[in-house]
């Protein structure tokens, strides 16, 4: 075991001696955290909107006002000519247009049921869908709130309506950051831990020092531990730093046990580092290692539930996600931070993740052994 200590010492010396490396390991995730933290959002805001109010009655102006007072939409123009509206959408200047027809107010009073048109650039399907939803919602809320002519109101007396009283649990303010940031931290650390470990072993192969180590009485698993442990310590410290920054910048509350969080993150990092070392063991050059780990990473990212909710994937793909350690840690970290979940509820995630960690490490040892001889 003393030999492993020597390996660890060497690794640390090498890392801290390359200033660029240190800057990247500690600086990069923080920058990425800020950028990603502020950009990754499912929310839709500031949609560029053109208002075409051809009626200019009390009712239509109420509707327009509702759109002016929300930050979901950003009215860039008031334009009633359809050709020019079309041009603006074609030119990427506006994404949506609302056209309130001539005589709108009058037709309502006469029960003629006029038609408001919502034109939308559907290229970004997701944003379009959400924007349409908001727009419909705003119009409906406004319609209920405005003074509708008496005959209609009279008809409403004697109505009984069911109303929903809603309460949001765990996230009263529907703060998006609370949900996204932990996921972002996980992603950042996965990337760095895999990249570091993937390149490390293979670099020694390239320069020839690996051979020197293999000729020594060092056992394979000792060598692998000697690679994983320094990175494990490093990335864990990094995780703590990044998480602390995240808490400060984005005001995240951690509702669950920090110790549990730390322990399970440690486990996860062991798995990703193991994966990186495994890649390192089966490749011959640093470039190859980089590519293969990048390949794994993209896959892991897409199939983890980070971008796309797992429930929304086709059944086959959902099954594949069970093989992805990132899937489990995302659930774990989100649950602990937001809901304060305890270990007993997380066993469905913790057990597979642990099994993976052990399996991957064993795979790395076996593969390394075979390759050497």
């Amino acid at each position, binding site marked *: 075991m*003393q030999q492993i200590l020597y390996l660890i*010492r060497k690794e640390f010396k090498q890392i801290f001696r390359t200033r660029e490396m240190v800057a990247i390991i500690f600086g990069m995730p923080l920058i990425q955290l800020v950028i990603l933290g502020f950009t990754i959002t499912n929310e839709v805001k500031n949609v560029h909107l053109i208002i075409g109010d051809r009626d200019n009655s009390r009712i239509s102006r109420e509707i327009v006002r509702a759109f002016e007072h929300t930050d979901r939409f950003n009215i860039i123009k008031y334009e009633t000519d359809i050709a020019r509206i079309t041009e603006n959408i074609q030119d990427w200047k506006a994404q949506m247009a609302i056209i309130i027809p001539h005589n709108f107010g009058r037709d309502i009073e006469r029960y003629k049921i006029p038609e408001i048109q919502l034109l939308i650039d559907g290229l970004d399907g997701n944003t379009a869908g959400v924007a349409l939803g908001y727009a419909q919602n705003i119009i409906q809320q406004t319609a209920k709130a405005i003074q509708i002519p008496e005959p209609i109101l009279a008809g409403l007396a004697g109505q009984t309506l069911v109303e929903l009283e809603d309460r949001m649990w765990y996230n009263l303010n529907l703060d998006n950051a609370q949900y996204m940031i932990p996921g972002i931290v996980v992603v950042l650390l996965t990337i760095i831990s895999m990249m570091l470990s993937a390149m490390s072993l293979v670099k020694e192969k390239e320069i020839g020092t690996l051979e020197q180590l293999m000729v020594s009485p060092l056992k394979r698993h000792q060598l692998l531990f000697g690679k994983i442990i320094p990175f494990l310590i490093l990335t864990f410290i990094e995780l703590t730093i990044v998480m602390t920054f995240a808490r400060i910048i984005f005001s995240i509350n951690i509702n669950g046990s920090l110790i549990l969080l730390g322990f399970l993150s440690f486990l996860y990092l062991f798995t990703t580092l193991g994966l990186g070392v495994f890649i390192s063991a089966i490749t011959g050059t640093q470039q190859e290692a980089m590519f293969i780990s990048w390949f794994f990473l993209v896959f892991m990212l897409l199939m983890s539930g980070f971008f796309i909710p797992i429930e929304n994937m086709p059944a086959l793909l959902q099954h594949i996600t069970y093989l992805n350690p990132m899937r489990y840690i995302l659930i774990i970290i989100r649950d602990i931070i937001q809901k304060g979940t305890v270990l007993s509820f997380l066993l469905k995630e913790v057990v597979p993740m642990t099994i993976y960690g052990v399996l991957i490490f064993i795979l790395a040892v076996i593969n390394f052994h075979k390759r050497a001889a």
Partner: protein
Amino acid sequence: METDQIAVHTEALTRRFGNFTAVKNASISVSAGEIFGFLGANGAGKTTMIRMLCGLLKPTSGSATVAGFDVYRQSEQIKRNIGYMSQKFSLYDDLTLSENIEFYGGIYNMSVEMIEQRKNNLLRELGIESEAEKLTRELPLGYKQRLALGCALLHDPPILFLDEPTSGVDPRARRSFWNLIYQTSRKGKTIFVTTHFMDEAEYCHRLSIMRDGEIIALGPPSGLKHKHGKSSMQDVFISIVNGERPV
């Protein structure tokens, strides 16, 4: 290990890579304290031979023992008893000389005091004590080479394997390196060295010449020169490789 013991012994040692046979039926016997050389062109099989004996590669067939241990089943014991130095020198460029030595000492499970003592000896012998805290990449090539040799000997192994240890080094440095090898041999260590420098072949006690994986000549340099009627190893080598018969 006593001088009449056999340090390395192989019988019909063979290594195949798919259809390609890198080493064919190599049978040699190296005594303790010998400087045994392996001569041959690039690709002749020298490196494969060394790698099998070091436990880096498993032979396809045949048998071999190193320091009395079987290469198939006892490779761990072999590794404890050998030192190895490759063409690439295998020192960490981004560690200091001191750190490199301490690291390799630790890997071989030496005690801290032992490492400290041997380290100081080694640095003093090479005359680079003052450079101990400099990064290895700043060391001139000749010194790096001798440092690598020193690291290989740190744990005092009875057998040393050197794979083209003098690549890229100027002739004067090569000579002083070989002086080091002689000194080491005189201490009773067995040295197994591969090279493609003909003049170095002259320095060995015995050598074998490899071509296309086969050993086509074996014996002391003087004997080989006499047998083939040539005055230099270079001529012997060319004549053998050309397929000329001995006189």
